[in-house]
Every structure is written in C-alpha cells, then in structure tokens.
C-alpha cells in the first residue's frame, strides 16, 4: 500500500536541502576539509538522476550521506519511508537501519565479502532479511545472477576469489534483487564488459518503469547517456564556490 504512494510517478522520493559535509581531521591537528556545501535537489519516483562532475567534486560523499554512511555536517535529507517523509540526517541509527531494510538500496563500487558465504546467498540475503523464505530468495537470486551472466559454477562459491567483474555482478545482483523504492548506484558498471553493461542499463530502465527513484554515479559516458533522466552537476555544491 505504501509502495503505491511512493511510486506514483512524480512523487518526491528524496529531497536534500542545504546538505553539507566537511571532514575534521583530528590526526592532522583538527584540519577542516569541506567537501560539499549547500547541496539541494529532489529526486522523484520513477526517475534516474545522475550526479555529475569531476573526481573529487563530492559525488561520492553525497551518495554516502544519502545512505547514512557519512554523517552530514548540516542540512537535511528527507526520504519517503512508507507514508512519511523522514529526515535521514537526524534519524536514529535504528531508524536508518529500518530505512535501509525497507526503502533504501545501495549498490556499492566494491563488494565487501563475507568469508565462507556462497555468492548465491550473498545475493539472496537482502530478501531473507526482509522476511522472504530462503528457498524463494535463492530462486530469485539465481534468476538475477543468470541475467547478469555469472557462470552457474560460481554460484555456490564465496565471491572472495572472484575477478573484479564477477564480484561486481554479484554486488549488482544483491543491490537490484529487492524492491526498494529508492536505489543508490555507486559506479555499478565500472568493471563490466559491454554486454554486462547493457544488462545493467536494462535493469535500471526496468526499475524506473517500476517507479523506483534512482540516484547514481556513472563515469562511463555511454551508460550515463542511456540511463540519466537528469544530471545534477555537483560542482554547484562545491565548497570553493560557497567560500
């Protein structure tokens, strides 16, 4: 029911206002390192927004703040969580965890592997965490891995020893398998070949059609062109300008 509300095209899914981030480096005598200042934007359901700008402009920091992985120094991030708009910056750790479980998905650049867990279970885990039974979750994990052309002989192996591209596909499968209404994508195609890049482009398009709001960083121009509805140039939020 709540999903219907959030996925009506045009509904605001994420709204960042006056978001800022600076690192205080206590080991360097308290050096203050501002990276983002006054970032304000909206992302709607069914839309894929790409954060653009050169390296070091703060794209990754913004994405990490949107996930609650970095603590914002100022501003707010409202996320439609169920029926309500919740401020992620002020949310308690438990609320952040609940938002991640139900609303906010994340595909990181690198897979943080867990020893001994088979690739298929790594992929199925977010579904199991949301209360789906293990057999169904594995079945869906298998279909997703198949779609990403990960050889079946690898499914039962822990991904620690996989190549970069194979790990990335496990990571993408894990991120895309749920039906989170908001998805954050941190260079998901960086180490993929052309064929698999196209699969990911398809998957992003499919998520859009399902009404998922997506915010991503893509260095690959071809992918960016293919998926972006809008590009937000984060240079506009650079501290230099604000200073």
């Amino acid at each position, binding site marked *: 029911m709540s999903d219907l509300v959030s996925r009506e095209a045009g509904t605001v899914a994420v709204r960042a206002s006056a978001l800022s981030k600076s690192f205080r480096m*206590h080991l360097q005598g308290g050096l203050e390192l501002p990276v983002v200042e006054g970032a304000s934007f909206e992302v709607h359901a069914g839309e894929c927004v790409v954060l653009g700008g050169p390296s070091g402009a703060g794209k990754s920091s913004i994405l990490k703040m949107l996930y609650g992985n970095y*603590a914002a120094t100022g501003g707010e991030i409202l996320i439609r*969580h169920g*029926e309500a708009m919740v401020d992620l910056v002020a949310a308690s750790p438990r609320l*952040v*965890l609940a938002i991640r479980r*139900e609303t906010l998905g994340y595909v990181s650049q690198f897979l943080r592997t867990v*020893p*001994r867990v088979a690739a298929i279970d790594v992929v199925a885990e977010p579904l199991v965490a949301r209360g789906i039974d293990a057999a169904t979750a594995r079945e869906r994990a298998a279909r997703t891995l198949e779609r990403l052309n990960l050889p079946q002989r690898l499914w039962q192996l822990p991904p620690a020893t996989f190549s970069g591209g194979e790990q990335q596909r496990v990571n993408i499968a894990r991120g895309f398998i749920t039906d989170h209404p908001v998805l954050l994508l941190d260079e998901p195609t960086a180490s993929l070949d052309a064929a698999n890049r196209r699969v990911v482009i398809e998957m992003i398009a499919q998520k859009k059609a399902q009404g998922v709001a997506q915010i991503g960083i893509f260095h690959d121009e071809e992918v960016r062109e293919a998926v972006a509805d809008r590009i937000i140039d984060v240079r506009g939020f650079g501290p230099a300008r604000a200073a």
Partner: protein
Amino acid sequence: MTMLDETPLLSVAGLSRYYGERVGCRDVSFEVYPGEVLAIVGESGSGKTTLLNCISTRLEPSAGSVSYRMRDGESRDLYRMSEAERRLLMRTDWGFVHQNPADGLRMTVSAGANVGERLMAVGERHYGRIRDTATHWLSRVEIAADRIDDQPRAFSGGMRQRLQIARNLVTGPRLVFMDEPTGGLDVSVQARLLDLLRGLVNDLGLAAIVVTHDLAVARLLSHRMIVMKDGRVVEEGLTDRVLDDPQAPYTQLLVSSILQV
C-alpha cells in the same frame, strides 16, 4: 513498516563503576533492542570489559541502572532482582560467551552434557530428549555428532568456542553477551566462527552485545557500535558510519590504525 516504538530489551542508564579512585567506566547509557547486535570497541583498559560485566550482573555497578525486559514484557531493574532471579535469567534468557572457552565450559564433562546442562537446570528430565537436542545444537555449530561424548579437553580452540556457543543457545536466549569471541583464534578459524555467529544471530533473531578490540569483527557482526576510551563512551552510532566517517579524535585514530592487508 518496522515498528520503532517497541521497548528496548536492555537499557543502561548512567552506569558507572569505580575501583576505589580509579574509573572502570563512567556514565554510560545505551539501549539494545530485540534482534540487534551492538559492538563495544576500545583498546584494553578502556572499560569495555567492566561495562560488559556490569550489564550482565557479574559486577555490581557503583551507580546507574540496568533494566531488562523479561519474557512477560515487564522491564525489571537487574540489581533490584533477587540473586535467584538473576541467575535464572543468566541460564535461560541470556547467554555469555567467554573469550577463553575454558571459562564457559565444563572441561571434564562431555560435549553433550555441556550442551544439555542448561536444559537439565530448567527441569528437563528425559535423557533421550536432552541428547537429541544436544545433537541438534552440535550440528548447528558444525561439530560432528560422533563427538558428543568427548570432553572439550580433546577439542581444538575453535571447536571449544563453538561448543560454548551451542551450550549458551540451547535454551533459546534472547540476549547473548560475547567477550572477544574470536580472540586467541587463528585467522581462518576466526572467519569460520564469525560466519557461524552471524548466521545464528540472523536465524534466531538474537540480540547480542559483543565486546571486541577488533574493528573487523565489529563491522561483520554488529548493527551499531559504541567506542570507549578511558571508561567513557567517545562515539556511538551505526557501525558502518562510525567506521567510514569517524567523528571523535580517538575513533579516527583507532580506524586509521588498522593494518591494511
């Protein structure tokens, strides 16, 4: 949507413990909710073990309160309960995994009896059922069924630690305390144990409080973490946030001190 208004399983308020003039831990407050894993990290001497002992009724605090929500839903102050009630709690609704398995196991009785002891303590009087349950739990912690009559003296360090975990989980506790559960184990054995713990915590919906100086253990097992220094909490929050974007000077030092492999 998750209900966030549920009451905590354990709440700690203003907890302090002094050893004469010296401070063990000072003014610590936090809450643990059902199914949540909390890591308490810090270097040795930071007060994390004192804190663990105070919240698990093993050491009386100098000030503050610790309350626990009993199975009947009522929250009780641990230090206002009778000793009999506290001990009953410790062997039914709680588990305690010691760093050194010899502290948590009976080394001279068989693995089966080690696992079965808690059942017998709560009145189970059917040998066959006790043995079946023990066999089941040994398999959950990956100990072969034919080792059930061996004493833990004959087990490796990793097996002993897994046996200790089985012994604690057999009564279906809701809260487990762990003191450096992977300390003193080889890295490969550590990985296996962590993976096992992670699986059990997820499957059983256990709440756990894990004391560790190993940030990798905290990252793998915990949802939230508390960083302690000199008996005080210097930082707390979501585990990945604390580790990826540490705010307090000490946490930054701790995180930057990890050796990269």
